[in-house]
């Protein structure tokens, strides 16, 4: 009796499952997407928003770059080269302090309206709104404009004094606070993108922040190669071709599907199961597996970002620069890169990663002998005389492994015990901002290809400094560079600034970031880019 019913039930389940399995699908997701010209991307998480003025994350920028377009566009293969975007051409004055952008009259919003110089002025006014209720964290990206900071901080109230003017419908004149030869580079960043005045004002006031519904699907109007099609929380975001885009001929993809795959192990498995063209990353444990199974589909490329430890220079024993330097020199960076990360990361000899014409001063290198000497000179009689030292990091697995490796290195090379404190993300950040730590693991990704994106954060009391460190010499060099139009001279001054910073060592550099991801062979025109800001308009799907 029991047997019969069990057999029946099992039979029923097997039948039901096999029915479901056979009836559902013939093609893999990738095959279907290839036929439809859709690129499927793992994008790591649900975006916090799609308003270019109110986000600050990498995953949001991946979507915003498809939807919007700035004055200039990233070249698909060459770092630091600016291609025409909304602007057809741009001409600086001799000092690089005044730039005239001639806008393309064909540039349109996805609802067919013209993109005008007034849209840009409106956007910069919005981004710089002095209203304390306007929570744009990234408004300092526009401080390159003359009087932008003064307007943003409420010191002047008339936006006409800010260096952004619409000369006519298709001519934008930008006046800068100093010579900035790399302005076109900056305009590729999403903080410089235009937002549609007529749509933003339809859903609220100029500075209505989160309560505005203008970025919701159905409302969002954009000027880039793609427009928003669907957006469901924790599920997917789909963009489709913008029929009004001025350069629609160049656009090859019919759309992009962004999947918020938070679990990177799942992401790698989805890639292997033909569900993704491109992964966001590859977990370090799976890199050997990916190398073996996917060969050249695994890419490991340089990325302008640096991993470091902030040092609380207001707390014993780190008030002493020699102790800070000793801690820096006792870090075996190579071992961390090769044994823990395995992603091709490079030991960081400074804070600014190597790129372009900048020659970084190579000051920090693993040197346990020198480290010991410095410690001996520091005035502490013995290592046991050191106060209790802690290192603060996040609750992530790699965070823990990195901290444990550092702990072992300081113990081995300096004989000092360091205790690890792990906190979940928001608590970790709060402790960092409150300078409630001795040593704090952190990192920084460059926003544009210029050393200042890594150096300006260390000015006295800068919002992201948090080390209590400050140096007049350092700031003088930054100021000097700001007023130098000659590129090589400017780079040399910035290198001096970095040298000043590293000599004092309020940060201990560990490694320079790389991006590690998997990409299917049919995705073309996807080249290594230092900022990893790939312009989707050039990406193609082509079967060999």
């Amino acid at each position: 009796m029991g047997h019969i019913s069990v057999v029946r039930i099992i039979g029923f389940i097997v039948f039901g499952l096999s029915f479901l399995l056979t009836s559902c699908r013939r093609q893999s997701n990738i095959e279907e997407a290839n036929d439809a010209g859709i690129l499927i991307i793992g994008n790591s998480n649900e975006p916090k928003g799609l308003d270019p003025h109110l986000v600050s994350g990498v995953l949001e920028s991946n979507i915003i770059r498809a939807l919007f377009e700035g004055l200039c566009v990233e070249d698909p293969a060459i770092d630091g080269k600016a291609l025409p975007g909304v602007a057809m051409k741009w001409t600086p004055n001799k000092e690089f302090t005044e730039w005239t952008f001639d806008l393309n009259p064909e540039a349109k919003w996805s609802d067919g309206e013209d993109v005008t110089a007034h849209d840009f002025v409106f956007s910069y006014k919005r981004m710089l709104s002095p209203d304390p209720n306007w929570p744009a964290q990234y408004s300092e990206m526009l401080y390159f404009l003359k009087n932008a900071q003064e307007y943003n901080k409420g010191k002047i109230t008339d936006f006409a004094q800010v260096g952004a003017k619409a000369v006519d419908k298709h001519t934008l004149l930008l006046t800068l606070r100093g010579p900035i030869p790399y302005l076109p580079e900056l305009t590729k960043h999403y903080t410089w993108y235009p937002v549609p005045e007529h749509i933003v004002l339809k859903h609220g006031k100029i500075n209505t922040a989160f309560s505005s519904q203008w970025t919701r699907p159905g409302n969002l109007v954009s000027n880039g190669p793609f427009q928003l099609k669907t957006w469901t929380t924790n599920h997917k975001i789909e963009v489709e071709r913008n029929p009004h885009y001025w350069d629609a001929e160049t656009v090859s993809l019919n759309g992009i599907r962004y999947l918020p795959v938070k679990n990177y192990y799942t992401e790698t498995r989805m890639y292997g199961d033909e569900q993704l063209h491109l992964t966001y990353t590859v977990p370090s444990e799976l890199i050997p597996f990916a190398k073996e199974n996917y060969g050249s589909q695994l890419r490991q490329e340089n990325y302008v970002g640096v991993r470091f430890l902030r040092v609380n220079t207001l707390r014993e024993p780190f008030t002493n620069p020699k102790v800070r330097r000793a801690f820096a020199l006792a870090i075996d960076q190579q071992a961390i890169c090769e044994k823990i990360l395995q992603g091709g990361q490079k030991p960081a000899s400074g804070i600014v990663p190597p790129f372009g014409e900048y020659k970084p001063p190579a000051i920090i290198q693993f040197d346990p002998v020198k480290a010991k000497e410095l410690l001996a000179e520091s005035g502490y009689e013995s290592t046991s005389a050191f106060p209790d030292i802690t290192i603060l990091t996040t609750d992530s697995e790699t965070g823990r492994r990195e901290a444990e490796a550092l702990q072992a290195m300081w113990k081995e090379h300096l004989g000092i015990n360091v205790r690890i404190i792990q906190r979940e993300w928001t608590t970790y950040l709060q402790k960092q901002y409150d300078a409630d730590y001795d040593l704090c693991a952190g990192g920084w990704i460059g926003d544009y290809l210029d050393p200042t994106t890594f150096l300006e954060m260390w000015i006295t009391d800068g919002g992201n400094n948090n080390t209590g460190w400050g140096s007049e010499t350092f700031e003088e060099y930054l100021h000097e560079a700001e007023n130098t139009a000659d590129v090589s001279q400017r780079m040399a001054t910035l290198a001096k600034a970095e040298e000043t910073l590293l000599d004092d060592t309020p940060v201990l550099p560990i490694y320079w970031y790389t991006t590690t991801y998997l990409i299917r062979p049919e995705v073309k025109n996807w080249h290594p880019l230092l900022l990893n800001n790939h312009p989707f308009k050039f990406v193609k799907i082509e079967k060999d």
Partner: protein
Amino acid sequence: MLRTILSRLLQTVVVVFLLVTFTFFAIHAMPGDPFADAKATSPEEKAALEAYYGLDKPLPVQYFNWWKNVITNNDFGDSIAMKGRKVSTLISESFPVSLKLGLLSLVMGISLGIPLGIIAALYHNQMLDYLAMIIAMAGICVVAFVLGPIFQINIAKPLTSLNVAGWDRPADIILPAITLCFGVAAYLARLTRGGMLDVLSQDYIRSARAKGVPPLKIITRHALRPALMPAVTFLGPAFAAIITGSFVVENIFLVPGMGQHFVLGVTSKDYNLVLGLVLFYGILMGIANLLSDLVLIFMDPKLRTS
């Protein structure tokens, strides 16, 4: 009967109120700042954000305002982490997904667990009993974050008709549902076995056997109903839990369900989201418990009179 229902409903209201109150003060006591971001927020901006979300007011005032908003506007407020989105929108987007997945895995769990428990009881202390209980024990011990990847690698990868993860094709529900159903099946098998063993040793079953009632009929007509009472008691809360989603299963299988909101709401200090979810979950739990009580009353005539 009506009085029972009314009194249970009243109890539910009190429990949910206490639950929300406790949660409110507990999450506000947690360290961490909801507005902390990888890039620094200036003190003015932070103050503005706090004012916007009403977090600048004293805690009791915030607490009172939250209830006022819920009762007068039927609104759980805005999500703090996912800015620009209402908590009610997040719930109404994700709950249907979790409900669908939960119901399927519940049905699967019931159809797997209860027969397993019956078999185990019928073959008490024999091979089949041990086998069934090993399966049940494994179902309790092997958690979803182990089971999920095993299914992804060993079932979805080789089978072209199943995806590793995602929520686009009808078949995408199968693996998460199987992963979820094991836990339910395991508990049900153990509870059914216990209940069944209890009933089978009763005098009236022996009388039925002595009278020559066919064995299958003894099980279906006489033993099953009382034997399932413990399982039904368990099913009430299990129902509410499973239809509100599972963080682990959603994370592994990329399911846009409700479970991840609970966890991410807590880690990102999204007070409004957590409170909205707790209120919603509390009400569901109350209803599910009430339903399972009603089923029990229906199943056991003795309860009807008491």
